[in-house]
């Protein structure tokens, strides 16, 4: 896949194959922290950063394990690196913005089990991207994640004012909304591979 242009990779990851709405990765934070736009934005940025770090690390891990012929340890190495990166972000945010730290709550350490990040590492390996392509892919995926989170948060802020039947409030309504959003994103399907 050497021929893919960087712009195409970015667009593909951010919009056409949006990690949340087309590939179903990272649904937990998508439903969990999308009730306010501000929190959604910060969560998106934190995830973007972890994605960048783990994408670069995954590239390095692939190289090292390839040299040592230990590819079966790939998964364990990825998850260990992701967990450390999340720990780093957590300490950083706790130090510089305690209020943000509180508003993200349990979802911050849970970035470790955000499958969007592990998925990113696995996909870039499967697509055999080189280093620059991997970084752009991570940026696109992070941007797409933030986009989906922000759209959902915007919708849910409006939804609070809407008069929906009591029985459908909460998770069921959010899932229906996500379905509509995902339907809208299918319109981009023709653009990509």
């Amino acid at each position, binding site marked *: 896949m050497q021929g893919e242009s960087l712009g195409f990779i970015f667009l593909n990851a951010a919009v056409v194959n949006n990690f949340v*709405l*087309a*590939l*179903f*990765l*990272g*649904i*937990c934070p998508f*439903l969990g922290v999308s009730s306010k736009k501000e929190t959604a934005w910060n969560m998106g940025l934190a995830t973007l950063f972890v994605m960048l770090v783990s994408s670069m690390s995954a590239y390095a891990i692939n190289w090292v394990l390839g040299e040592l012929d230990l590819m*079966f340890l790939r*998964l*364990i190495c990825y*998850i*260990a690196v992701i*967990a450390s990166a999340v720990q780093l972000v957590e300490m950083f945010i706790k130090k510089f913005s305690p209020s943000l730290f509180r508003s993200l709550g349990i979802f911050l*350490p*849970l970035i*470790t*089990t*955000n*499958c969007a*990040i*592990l*998925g990113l590492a*696995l*996909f870039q390996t*499967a697509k055999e991207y080189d280093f620059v392509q991997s970084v752009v892919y991570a940026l696109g995926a992070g941007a797409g994640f933030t986009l989906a989170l922000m759209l959902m948060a915007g919708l849910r802020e409006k939804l609070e004012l809407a008069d929906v039947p*009591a*029985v*459908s409030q*909460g*998770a*069921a*309504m*959010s*899932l*229906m909304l*996500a*379905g*509509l959003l*995902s*339907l809208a994103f*299918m319109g981009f399907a023709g653009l990509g591979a």
Partner: protein
Amino acid sequence: MAGLPNQTEKLSLDTFLRGLWEENPVFVMLLGMCPVLAVTNSTMNAIAMGLATTFVLVASSVLISLIRNLIPKQVRIASYIVIIATFVTVVDYAIQAISLDLYNALGAFIQLIVANCVILGRAEAYASKQRLHTTLVNSLGMGAGFTLALLSLGTVREVLGNGTLLGYAVMPADFQPWVVMILPPGGFFVLGAWLLLFAWLKQRRDQRLLQQEGAPHAG
């Protein structure tokens, strides 16, 4: 996690059934949604994914329960993740050996079992505190509940989206498949519909209980 006391639990039928219904990981606790939505476009995929997840869940819970007194508290999450990742690697290679078609259909989602919060949640909330036999039974129940949830999505989506069940045609010949059901939005819609159904059932039951209690005092 639903208010479990910290002391060890006595083994009972409820230990198993809780995971299936009352604390169903998907419908009640809303955990592990990614594979639930992503691989349920056919019944076969749903069954395979359910079995694979159950195996990892049971094996890692049992191992964690066995060595729960050896793991230092500070590094417990990292230890759990490494144990889970090991079993996922086993499953990954096993499925690749058993059926390459299935492996390609499930794609990255086999390896993504590592990031399934049901498993880490069980390890943290249950296996790290309970004895071996209750952990075994409880994780079997949770695995069964997870598989049940996958199946209830997979069957609906395959029947409506493709007109088939496990590959056999079940709908009349002139049935127009709702293609959207096997596409990504269908996953959201079907799960949303199931949650709506359960919320409605719960609301009805609560109302009936309220009426039964309220009736004698009403006059």
